[in-house]
């Protein structure tokens, strides 16, 4: 999605450092310190995880850490809320994965 460079009311963001990171093995660009979810949205990535049981695609919902919908994995950090976790240079980010459900054995559509 489009980034706003010069916000009509709030102006420009000062001193943003462009960095690169990896999402699902693919190199991507973002700014240091912005939330992972914002960098991914700017890159057009809406799906942040597959639902643990159904495997359906899920994205961010509240963007301020309340709803937990945007959880994904970051190498070295484990599962994080991508809306609150600042992007770092070279970060390896993976979308949340569907989990095996041999224990419940539930069949989902």
């Amino acid at each position, binding site marked *: 999605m489009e980034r706003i460079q010069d916000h009509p009311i709030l102006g420009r963001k000062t001193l943003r450092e462009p960095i690169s990171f990896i999402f699902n093995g693919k190199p991507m660009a973002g700014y240091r310190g912005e939330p992972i979810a914002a960098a991914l949205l700017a890159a057009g990535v809406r799906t942040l995880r597959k639902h643990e049981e159904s495997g359906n695609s899920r*994205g961010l919902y509240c963007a301020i850490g309340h709803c937990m919908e945007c959880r994904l994995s970051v190498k070295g950090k484990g599962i994080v809320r991508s809306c609150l976790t*600042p992007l770092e240079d070279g970060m390896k980010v993976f979308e949340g994965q569907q989990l095996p459900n041999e224990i419940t054995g539930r069949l989902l559509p």
Partner: protein
Amino acid sequence: MKSKRQQSDLIIVGAGPAGLAAAAAAAENGLSVTIIDEFPEPGGRMLGQFHEERGHWWVGKRIADELIEKNRAQGVLIRCGVSVYGMLKVDDMWEVSTSHGTMLAPRVLLATGAAEIPMPANGWTLPGVMSIGAAQVMTNVHYVKPGKRGIIVGVNVLAMAIARELSVSGVSLASIVLPPSGPFAGKAALPKENLQLLMSLSHLAPSPILRFGGKIANALGLAGIVSSLFPRSGIKLWDIPLKLRTKVVSINGTDRVESVTLADVNGQGEIIAGSEREEAVDFVALAGGLYPLAELASIAGCPFIYTPELGGHLPLHSERMKTPVEGLYVAGNITGVESALVAMAQGQLAATSICSDAGIFGHNGESKVAAAIEEVHRVRASALIQFHPGIPEARRKIYRMWQETFGAGV
């Protein structure tokens, strides 16, 4: 988890308008203060808020920056990116469990703000469906547009204020429509109730609300508030069609939002057969309103009361922002959903209360608290954006209940 323990006179949870105002005031009176917030930067929701007021823009970010500067100058420790997950009173000390270790203080102020009420709709788990606050944060805080073209579902003060922000920020919006009816939406899905709500806001001159309130009044004439008179094509608010006779039926797409199905409704909110049609959008902002974010008060053992005018279940507190739990205070939207200015005044009041209880003001404590209470009343009375009619009366009810339960002057 690291196990370092840090002690202050006061821990404040939440670096929004209430927390920042309280911290600056408490530190000014000599308390050592630590503010904790899980968002990466301080300012709370003020960071993304702006509205037009008497011909100029009120910009929350600027107010936040001033408050943050004041706090830095007073030596307040602001710890961002830190989540609080537990609170335990051991002797006279609160042990606050955080993602970065335990922090200690004899007094804790909860200024955690509000959260959005989720509003389920068919297809709402598709990527691209978000709360309206998320659209605001992505656009105004992170400078990333939520999509190419979206639709707002739900008509309330928050939806209107953010719709205006998004349109000013260059985000394309197809329209604002009613939520699907059902147990979750309740009256929010009925055209007449929404129209009445908007009309009731129109006296709030010269707020952004006035402009659309007035427009609606013009569109309807003074003939009366009858939803069937509301034009089916909607009326335009800042180029966004507000459609009070249209509701969303479903949100469609395979792995992301591709469209919404809309339908016209009659005055009772029932779908008019054959009126269903699809509209192409790539994001949907659901606006269900706000409720006080109060889990920590519950963990700390504070009793709750249900006050719909203030957003639902909230921690019982006195007019001086004290809870029945010794050493636990509240301020801002956790005590009821109101504007940032009211939250700041409440933060000031809570800090005054805390300093008074800590004996810092000597015999002047009560008069200082009384003055801070007066200031909250003054700010509330002059607030341009009211989230709910009947806030002052609802608050009086809570304080009466407090006095009846705990005796006067607590």
